[in-house]
């Protein structure tokens, strides 16, 4: 069956010894969707995500990302995805410009493409003043936006965001979500983990993981109706307490 699912996961598991960090999860993500991947710390979010981005091989089950198999075609997956970790990892001792050049380079962009992307990005984020400053000197919010833009440099089909808003203030978080919306609007699929329940409301669909299993998966609106609550926070608490 042809479909427009960019991520397709069936009965995926990861065992560490006897412990099932991820326990037979199944879900799919549609192209252009903002998919929220929720769960408490230790619920298995990060493990599941690492399997999807090709740096951890699953114990059993099947999964394809951007049409490529996670077991055999991890290299192709890597070319088609962007990734931003919760540390907003950029090189602190490199300037904004050097970071962009480096990350563009490892994704195989030409010098011309990199220059063009850099101009757009600097313009959009308002970083003209600091292109030649070390990243270490930037405020956290700017680093976060820059890290996100860098993960989009090679125009990936899907971008994976691992708790992208940890430690930043509410206004910056708001602005960050506007960037996410913009990217989604341009056709990039967003796969985002978070433990801020208000952010879950911004997603098209959310899944909630508890102890390695996906306990709920739907639009925020439906979830709230099903669990008969007003906020996603209450949905989460009901699920997490069992």
């Amino acid at each position, binding site marked *: 069956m042809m479909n427009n699912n960019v991520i397709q996961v069936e009965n995926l598991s990861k065992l560490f010894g006897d412990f099932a960090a991820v326990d037979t999860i199944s879900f799919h993500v549609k192209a252009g969707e903002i998919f929220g991947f929720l769960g408490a710390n230790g619920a298995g979010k990060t493990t599941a995500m690492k399997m999807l981005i090709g740096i951890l091989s699953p114990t059993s089950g099947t999964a394809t990302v951007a049409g490529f198999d996670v077991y055999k075609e991890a290299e192709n997956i890597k070319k088609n995805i962007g*990734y931003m970790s919760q540390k907003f990892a950029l090189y602190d001792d490199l300037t904004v410009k050097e970071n962009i050049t480096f990350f563009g380079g*490892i994704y195989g962009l030409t010098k011309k493409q990199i220059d063009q992307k850099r101009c757009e990005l600097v313009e959009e984020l308002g970083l003209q003043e600091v292109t030649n400053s070390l990243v270490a000197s930037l405020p956290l919010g700017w680093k976060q936006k820059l890290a996100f833009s860098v993960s989009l440099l090679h125009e990936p089909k899907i971008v994976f965001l691992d708790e992208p808003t940890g430690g930043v203030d509410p206004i910056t978080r708001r602005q960050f979500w506007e960037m996410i919306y913009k990217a989604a609007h341009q056709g990039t699929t967003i796969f985002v983990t978070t433990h801020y329940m208000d952010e879950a409301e911004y997603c098209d669909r959310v899944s909630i993981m508890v102890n390695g299993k996906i306990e709920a998966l739907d639009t925020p609106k439906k979830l709230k109706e099903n669990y008969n609550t007003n906020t996603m926070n209450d949905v989460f608490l009901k699920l997490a307490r069992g």
Partner: protein
Amino acid sequence: MKRFVGFVRKEFYHIYRDKRSLFILFGMPIVQILLFGFAISNEINNVDIAILDQANDVTSKEIINKIAASKHFSVVDVIHQESSIENIFKKGKVKAVLQFENNFGNNLVKENNASVQILTDATDPNMASAISNYIASILQNYQQESNKNVSIDYQIVARSRMVYNSELKSVYMFVPGVMTVILMLVSAMMTSISITREKEQGTMEILLVSPLKPFQVIIGKVFPYIFLSVINAIIIVLLSIFVFNVPVEGSIFLLAIESVLFIITSLALGILISTISATQQTAMMISLMGLMLPTILLSGFIFPISSMPVPLQVISNIIPAKWFIIIVKGIMLKGIGIGYILKETLILFIMTLLFIGISVKKYKIRLE
């Protein structure tokens, strides 16, 4: 290839902007080689001694003049009673006292048997024995010269000649050792720190998610250090040739190839360390304690391996530095060719393969 160039450029930015690592890279080698060359020396130069001349005759005066004229000693004090000897040692003014017996000259001529006592301050035992050897040889020398004119009985003189380092210059021994320690330090410690820094910052994760393959990441990270280590090796060799006049008897080309081999061995060790340590701090501690100490103490750099207890001699075999020091000494001081150091070269080569093998295995486990 373009990716690789970009990666290496980024590594150079890291090194260039971190003043501490810049110092370790280029300051340390120069400081160390100068320190070892000048300060830490076993040579006898201008050692202060005192004379207790109870004979006070022509012969004893001649000998004293001979000693005072040599560049090894300077006579700083003349004492007149035996009781002052202890006092002068306690003050630390001199390292040795030379005592001539009463009627020294007479005894020598008439009975053909006169005695001199050499008292040395053995708180520094190596120094003390060196001093007494030097003085003894000056005395012997004097004796031979005076016998020439008189032509008396047979004399058997045992002559020892030091080969390869005939002047017993300690800097000859230190250069290969310092070179080894520095190449080890730069290659192993700096790479393990720079790889673990990526882990700590979270950028390693980003690199692994990128289309770069893990081995490309590692090669990109170690390449600049190969380059810098080679420059370091060149600086050390130039310093030893032009500042300390240490000869390079053998082939420079062979020395260069062996050095590159040892640099790669050390880099492989650095990679291995980075796979077992999560933070820069751990990597540094493991490099210092696990590599530097054995390299300095057990490699034969400072303490001769043959005089170690047997268990330590056995352990010294697994230290790469031991084999490299043998190679460098062989090439620089003895001028030997590859034929004589095949075994050592092969051992280093196998060690390198082993380290790389273990690293690859560990690396895979981490990714699982």
